[in-house]
Each structure stands twice: as C-alpha cells, then as structure tokens.
C-alpha cells in the first residue's frame, strides 16, 4: 500500500512537471513559429555566455521576469477572489491530466505500473469537469478586478467557453458510442483493432466529423486565435487586464496547459492514444507475421514516446491554424458554435447510434 502510494506520488510529480515544462517550451515554440511563418527571426536574443540556442533561453528569462515583477493588487472589494482566481484556473487545468493514460499497464513484480495517475470508470467526464472548472478562474478574475474592461472580457470569455464546451462534449459522444465506455484506458485499448488487417481503427477513422468538431471546439475552449476574444491581447483587452507578475503568468500558462490537455484528449479519443500501429504485446506484427520481436519493457517505453509525438502533431496543427486565421467577430463566433457545430454534433450522435444498431441487427 505504502509502496503504491509512493509510486503514484512519483508519477503525479513527473506528469505535472512534464506538463509545466512542455507548456514553458510551447511559449517559445509559439513565438518562433509565428516568426517563421511571418518571415521574421523571432525570439533569439536571450543568451548565456554568448550561447543563444535559437532563443531557447527566453523560456528561462520569461520565468525569471515573471517572478521578479511587482505583484500589483488593485483596489477592489473582492481581494481574496482576485488572489485565488489564477490559482483556480491553473490548478484545474493541471488536474485534467489525472485521467490521461500515457502508456499501457505493465505488470512487474506484483505492481501494476502505468503512466496514468488514476483510472476511474468515468475518466473522460472527469477531464471535461476539470476543463469546465477553469472557466471559474477566468470569470472570478474578471469580476474581482474592479475594472469595466476586465468584467466585459470575462463575460465574453464565459459565454464563449460555455458555448464551445457543449460542442466539445457533444462531439465526443459519437466516438464514445462506438467504444461503449467512458474509461480512458479502455478507449485506447479499443483502438488497437485493425480494419481489413492493415488500417488501424483509430477514432479519426471511425468518426472523422467528430474529430474536426472536437479540434475546433477545443481551440475555442482554450481561447486560441481565431477564438481569442476573452483575451484579445492587443486591442479589445481581456479579463486578465489588472493582473501582473506570476498571477498574470498563471493565466497565460493556463492557456498552454489547456492546449496540451485538449491535444491529449484528442489523441486519446481520436488518434489511438499510446497505440502504435501493428505494435502488439509481442512486438511489431503484420498480418500474423512477427516482423520485430520486442521485450515488454521496450514496448512500454515506446508507448509514451508515441503519445508525445501525436500530441506534438496536434499542437503543431493548432498552431498553424492560430497563425493563419484572423480573429472571428463575436456574432460569427456564436453563429459557428450554436448554429453549425451543435446541430452537426447532434446529427453525428444520431447517425452513429443508428448505424451501430443496424450493424448489430
């Protein structure tokens, strides 16, 4: 019991710190990619002893800067709410990772070794609940700032995020009908199937429409451009207007953590999670022929690497979209969410259920 608790604690610390480190890395990636796409040089000034490393030290210098800044608290009636709002947003965004399966379960010496913090039966609902809670951080932050612009930004943000949360949750129902389960590990295990012996039956193959709905709603739910109306960094000013130092950093970081969370969910539900095509528990097998035999430990190490690679691909696509499209107008945003994505998601649910019933009969 104690051994298991210690093991779990280690996994939790590793997962949380990996996500934070990856989030910090993404702040640099985002600047660098925008620079590349706009034919600029981009962040490359920070250096240690003349060593620049394409500006990788900007991550470090940004962090130090955030810590070294004055923490300004405006005159407000809701001082405690103002202080706790960034904590709420950041904490719940990180808690979403508690149910993401990063690898298969490995049985070693009586222990069940799995790079997953917890595996409850309601897995995916838990992740959505945590994502939904981050909205509180945004609304409370805007409300407690005692500033008209912050309040309006928070209202915009709340309306946008709850609208797209519905589309997000509805888009996932389609694939879940196919998998018959809400358990994250079982969702991934289902996707090991091969269609016709060669095509991996990942969620994106079974439910292509749901995948596009999910990615779009996910981009909106994490406040990315073209859906960045809650923040509107340069012109319309958002909910985090009165924040400074690391509390502002917490809101900014929440964006990146949520982006990783949405990518992880998309990978788990639609891109096969930690599955590698043709990699079974004995190694690479194609049409009954063993091409390459591997030990269970090696396979268990390949799986998180595959997961990480898929997450990187999804984030890359999200970033391409972010730097390609201009921002939506607010009525266009609501139009897309309520009048296009929601009916499409419902149609997808009905058609999927009908097809499955017919196939079974």
């Amino acid at each position: 019991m104690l051994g298991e608790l210690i093991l779990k604690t280690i996994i939790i610390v590793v997962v949380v710190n990996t996500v934070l480190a990856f989030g910090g890395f993404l702040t640099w990636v985002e600047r660098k990619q925008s620079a590349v796409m706009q034919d600029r040089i981009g962040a490359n000034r920070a250096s240690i002893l003349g060593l620049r490393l394409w500006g990788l030290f900007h991550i470090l210098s940004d962090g130090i800067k955030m810590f070294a800044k004055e923490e300004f608290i405006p005159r407000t009636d809701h001082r405690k709410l103002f202080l706790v709002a960034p904590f709420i947003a950041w904490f719940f965004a990180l808690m979403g990772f508690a149910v993401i399966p990063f690898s298969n379960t490995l049985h070693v010496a009586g222990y069940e070794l799995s790079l997953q913090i917890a595996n409850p039966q309601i897995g995916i609902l838990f992740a959505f609940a945590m994502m939904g809670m981050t909205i509180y951080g945004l609304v409370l932050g805007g409300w407690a700032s005692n500033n008209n612009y912050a309040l309006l930004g928070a209202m915009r943000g709340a309306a946008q995020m709850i609208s797209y949360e519905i589309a997000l949750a509805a888009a996932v129902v389609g694939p879940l009908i196919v998998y018959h389960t809400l358990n994250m590990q079982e969702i991934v295990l289902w996707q090991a199937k091969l269609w016709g012996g060669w095509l991996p039956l990942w969620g994106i193959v079974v439910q292509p429409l749901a995948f596009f709905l999910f990615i779009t709603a996910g981009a909106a739910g994490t406040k990315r451009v073209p859906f960045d109306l809650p923040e509107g960094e340069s012109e319309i000013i958002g909910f985090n207007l009165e924040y400074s130092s690391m509390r502002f950093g917490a809101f900014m970081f929440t964006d990146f953590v949520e982006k990783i969370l949405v990518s992880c969910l998309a990978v788990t539900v639609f891109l096969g999670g930690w599955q590698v095509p043709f990699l079974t528990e004995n190694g690479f097998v194609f049409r009954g022929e063993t091409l390459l035999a591997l030990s269970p430990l090696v396979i268990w190490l390949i799986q998180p690497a595959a997961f990480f690679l898929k997450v990187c691909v999804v984030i890359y696509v999200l970033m391409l979209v972010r730097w390609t499209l201009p921002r939506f107008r607010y009525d266009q945003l609501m139009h897309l969410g309520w009048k296009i994505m929601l009916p499409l998601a419902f149609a997808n649910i009905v058609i999927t259920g009908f097809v499955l019933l017919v196939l079974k009969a």
Partner: protein
Amino acid sequence: MHSYLPILLAIIVTALIVGAVLGLSALIGPKPEITKEKERPFECGYIPFQEPGKRFPVHYYAVAILFIVFDIEIIFLYPWVASFEAVGKTGFFAAIFFILILTFGLVYEWLRGGLEWH
C-alpha cells in the same frame, strides 16, 4: 488501490506545486508604495466614470440559460453511451426522442432570434 485515491493525491501535489509558484512570486517580487493614481482601474489613461458592478446590459444571459439546458442534456447522454449495448433499440429511440425535444427548443430559440447578436 481504490481508483479515486490517486486523484486525492494529485489534488494535494498539484495544489502544492501551483501554490508554491504563486506564493514564491508574491514573496520575492518588489513591493513599491501604492499611490492613489496607481490604484485606479486601468482604462488606457482615461479616468473611469463608472465603477463596474453597477447595472449593465448582459446579452450573455440567454446563452447561459441555453448552456444549462444543453449541458444537462449531454450529461444525460453519457450514461446511455456507456450502456449502449445493454439498452439496445429501446434506449436508442428513447435517446433520439430526448434529443429531438431539446432540438425543438434550440430551433425555437433560433427562430425567435435569441441567437442573434446586435
């Protein structure tokens, strides 16, 4: 091991890490004197003529109401999804009926112009 115990553990560890980062920042940042000018809400240099918290038109109200209805609908769909095999045809038609009723609500709201933005 109970499947929810690790979540409790994760809550503690994550809260500690996030709290430590925010607390450290509050501890080591400079703390200059706060003047009256600095305390004023930031509105790009203009002097604000209205404090927030007063009445102001909220068009987002209708969206919030719609959200509650549809969020509950989708939450009710999840148990159906998990037991799709067990409830079979009856469950499917019950779910369709349920979705249809709420879709009528959406269509009504749509036709009444509740989803338009002015």
